[in-house]
């Protein structure tokens, strides 16, 4: 027994256990948010289309996600005959894991509300979004179905193209904050910018508006959402890369897509909207973070049900010929302004 007590005094082990508890809380919290995000999307979509969304299951349809999960678990799962079994099973897992890893570097609030603050936090986010490309590529290829393969290849080309513009748009933020660590970026946005009697929080939304717009558009393309969801377009490619997926594997792809949406929104809040900083004591930080996060998530849902889908060549045109030069110009202008001392 005293050996166990001595073991617990080990600081490495304590750190690991504390991190494990935080990860457990964040994981379950995010899973809960994802399932209710799907419900909110269906409700909002319904109201935008002049109908009421799901309202049968439970009061106001609030138990709909639970019914959905139950249905997905109970559906028959079949695997196409010629499919590559291992990769077929692996692809939905790869869809979810990088998005979850991103949550470990996001500062949800001050001191104990984040798992870790690595000093290359922004690069970890970019690395995980690069790894997310594999899920769709492998899912499309392993299904042994030409529609799925086309959807997978289109999607991987799209995601790789928009990653460039996304990375470049975050460089402006990096120049202003002078650090890659997400905690330092939030700390830089906690200050106020005084314009006479007016005190505006120094959010990067005001200092880097172009980068914010570019980041949000590329975030839509990276998560394969709305106007950029040709790879999973129902009317075009049967169901794109997840044609052959059923039951919980499809559920995992769906979950992975929304998890990606939430993680990119969390990063956008951290980089551009000031993270957890807001009026009032710092311990309210996590509530401010959640509020900003929900605003961005509503924005994602709103865009999906408002705009028509972009054709694939229009999509690639936008990524390479419009967003990439704009992001590069933004880096140049920001660098000049920081060098001349105009921007903080």
């Amino acid at each position, binding site marked *: 027994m005293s050996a166990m007590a001595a073991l617990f005094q080990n600081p*490495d082990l304590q750190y690991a256990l504390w991190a494990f508890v935080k990860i457990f809380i964040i994981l379950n919290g995010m899973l809960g948010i994802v399932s209710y995000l799907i419900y909110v999307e269906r409700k909002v979509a319904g109201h935008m289309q002049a109908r009421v969304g799901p309202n049968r299951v439970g009061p106001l349809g609030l138990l709909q996600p639970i019914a959905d999960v139950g249905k997905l678990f109970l559906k028959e799962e079949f695997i196409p005959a010629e499919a*590559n079994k*291992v*990769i077929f099973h692996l692809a939905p897992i790869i869809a979810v894991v990088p998005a979850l890893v991103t949550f470990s570097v996001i500062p949800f609030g001050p001191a104990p509300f984040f798992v870790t603050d*690595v*000093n*290359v936090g922004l*690069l*970890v986010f*970019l*690395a995980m979004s*690069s*790894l997310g*490309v*594999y899920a769709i*590529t*492998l899912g499309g*290829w392993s299904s042994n179905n030409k529609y799925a*393969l086309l959807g*997978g*290849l289109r999607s*991987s*080309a799209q995601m*790789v193209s928009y*990653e460039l513009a996304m990375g470049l748009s975050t460089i402006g933020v990096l120049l202003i904050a002078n*650090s*890659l660590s997400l905690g330092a970026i939030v700390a830089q946005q906690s200050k106020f910018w005084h314009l006479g009697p007016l005190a505006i929080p120094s959010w990067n939304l005001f200092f880097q508006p172009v980068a914010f717009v570019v980041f949000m558009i590329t975030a839509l393309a990276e998560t394969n959402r709305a106007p950029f969801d040709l790879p999973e377009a129902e009317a075009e490619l049967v169901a794109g890369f997840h044609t052959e997926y059923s039951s919980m594997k499809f559920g995992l792809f769906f979950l992975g897509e929304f998890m990606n949406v939430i993680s990119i929104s969390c990063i956008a809040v951290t980089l551009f909207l000031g993270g957890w900083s807001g009026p009032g004591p710092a311990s309210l930080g996590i509530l401010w973070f959640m509020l900003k996060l929900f605003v961005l998530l509503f924005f994602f849902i709103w865009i999906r049900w408002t705009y028509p889908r972009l054709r694939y*060549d229009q999509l690639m045109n936008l990524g390479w010929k419009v967003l990439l030069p704009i992001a590069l110009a933004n880096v140049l202008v920001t660098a000049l302004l920081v060098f001349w001392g105009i921007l903080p």
Partner: protein
Amino acid sequence: MIQALFVALSAIAVVSSLLVILHRNPVTSALFLVVSFCSLAGIYLLQHAEFLFAVQIIVYAGAIMVLFLFVIMYLNLKSDVETGVQIAVRRGIGWLVGAVLAAEGLWLMARHWAPGPTSLQPAADTDNTRAVGQLLYTRYLFPFEITSLILLAAMVGVIVMARGRGHASRGEER
């Protein structure tokens, strides 16, 4: 603790590299190579190279291997068929040369030519990315600019090669 992590990551790297060259299906080889790259990235992190850890995953695992997978899927390659005496003879010679290389490496290691840990103290806790950036843009500025020229040349070369001959007018119709 760090040593245990290093041993675990290097075991993963070696096993997945072996599976890269042993597996018949090129897609599986590519995926094992991705695993190998990610474990190497972990080892870079243990060697206090945080910027390289992130860049390894972004560039190698996230871009280069995606390109490989793209080409393999585009060419619709099935598993390799490796039967026949000539091929087996060539394979045997290949393994023999590899064994000779491995023996050389082991012999060098056994003679302890690689030094152990030095008495140098690790540098002060400056941000690795900041230090790499400062070095890259002052002392290594010229190679940095040359690298951008290399990338430009590669991009132009790939576009010219991918278009093929006689397709020059096809791009202007849109």
